[in-house]
Every structure is written in structure tokens, then in C-alpha cells.
């Protein structure tokens, strides 16, 4: 495994934790916090997928 693979895994974990926080905030009617954590989760997921993809030949 390369460094980028570990980074991708870490980003998926970060996304899961962010969604967890976002849902928790949404349940407690803290909409701004929920929005923040959900956006962080989406960006982290997208970044994880981009990092995980193997590099193309130059």
C-alpha cells in the first residue's frame, strides 16, 4: 500500500465521522452545525475517491 491509499482510507473515515456529527447535529436541530459537518463529509468522500484512483500514465 502506498501513502495515497492510507490517505484515502483516512478520508473515508473522516467522512464517516463527519456524517455522524452532522446527523447528530441535525437531530438536535442545530442546522448550521449539521450543514457544516455534512459539507465536510461530502468533500472528504469526494477527495477519498480522487486520491484512491490510480495515477494515469503521463
Amino acid at each position, binding site marked *: *500500500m*502506498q*501513502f*495515497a*491509499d492510507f*490517505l*484515502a*482510507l483516512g*478520508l*473515508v473515515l473522516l*467522512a*464517516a465521522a463527519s*456524517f*455522524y456529527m*452532522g*446527523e*447528530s447535529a*441535525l*437531530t438536535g*436541530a442545530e442546522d448550521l452545525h449539521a450543514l*457544516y459537518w*455534512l*459539507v*465536510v*463529509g*461530502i*468533500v*472528504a*468522500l*469526494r*477527495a*477519498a*475517491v*480522487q*486520491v*484512491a*484512483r*490510480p*495515477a*494515469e*500514465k*503521463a
Partner: protein
Amino acid sequence: MATVLERLSALGAAAQATVPGVYAWGVTVAPAAWAHGSSVVAKVASVLALLALAGGVAGERRWGGTARIYSLWGFVLACALTWSATPAAFAPLRIDAPRGIAGMIGWGLFALASAAPALQGRREEERITDDQPLRPRKGLVRGDALYLAFGALAAGLLQLFGWRVATPERALLVRFVGLAAGLGIIGAATEVALARHKKRVARPTMRRLRRAMYLLVALGLLGMTGLLFAFRA
């Protein structure tokens, strides 16, 4: 037991969908329609829903797939009418979590049975040829199951929220967000697992990081913004 299953498999798809349909009706529609103080419209619509299911079984033999479609829509619309006529029955305090989960499973099974082709009975012996078992073209690499298990676990944990929210709109929003986030996590975990098997080129790490740089920068900015707000509060 085997006879019942064989008989059921000999029937059409609408008949097979009746079993989970009646279960879903029994868990989610009947308690609402026959609750104390429910309207006549709800009761009539709930009975119509059952009749639509039965009509699908009878009509499938004569009209085939068309009867199945009418039966499906008739059942779903009659159930929706029942729920619309008894909105109080779905107040969060009157629905407990096990019943909610049982209802979700029932409707999921009904959707699956309605959409999938009918199960066939046991095949005739002479049409089965004994041969070497087929070899998979590619074996699964160890660790893929771990990625998928992690994705499924994270998605499952997200479903624990929102069962005791007082407002129905917020409860629905929490459910919807939880489902969407769960699907996203499972999808991303699958992509990360599959990406490990693709061919690699030399010195790929910097190229991969460069491609995701704008997202990583956005993530960093979001993190800093969050820290700033946390310290200000």
C-alpha cells in the same frame, strides 16, 4: 414446508409479491387504519389495498404482467390514501423503532418481490448437466471484504439517529440524510477497495495527490473555518 414453497414458486410474480405485501400491510397500514378514532376513508382504503393485491393474483393468470402493474399501483395508492387519512397515527411518539424497522423491511421485500421475476420451481433433473465447477476469472483479494464491512457498518450506525425526534418533518429529513450519507460511504469504500487492484504507474503518489489537491485544499479551509468558529464560541 417444501410443498408450500413449491406451490408458491409455481404461481406468478404477483402471487409471490402478495406474501411480503400482506406483511407490509399488516405492519404499517392496518394499525393506522384500525386505530382508535381513524376515519372511514382510511378503513375502506386499507381494505381496497388488500383487494388490489388479491386482484393482482387473480388477474395475472388472465392478463399477465398488465394486471400485476395495476395491482401494484392500486395497492400502493390505497396504502398512501390510508396514511393520508390518518396522519395522527404516524406521529413519532406513536411509532416505536422495532415497528418502523419491520415496516421498512416489509416494504423493501415487497418492492423486491414486485420488481424481480417470479421464482421458478425445481428444475428438471435431465436438464442439469454435471460438469466441473466454473472457475472465477479473478479471485477476490483479501481485504476487500473489510472495506465493504466498514462501509456497511458506518452506514448502519448512521441509521441509529432520528428515531426519537419529535417533529415528523425533521425525523424524515434525518432519515433521508442518513440514507444518502450511508449510500455515499458504501460507494466510496467500494471505490477505494476496487482502486487497489488497478494497474499502477511509477511515482504515482504525487500525481494522485495533485489531482485531488483542490478538494484537499477545500477540506483544509473547512477545517480551519470550523476551528476558528469553535475557538470564537
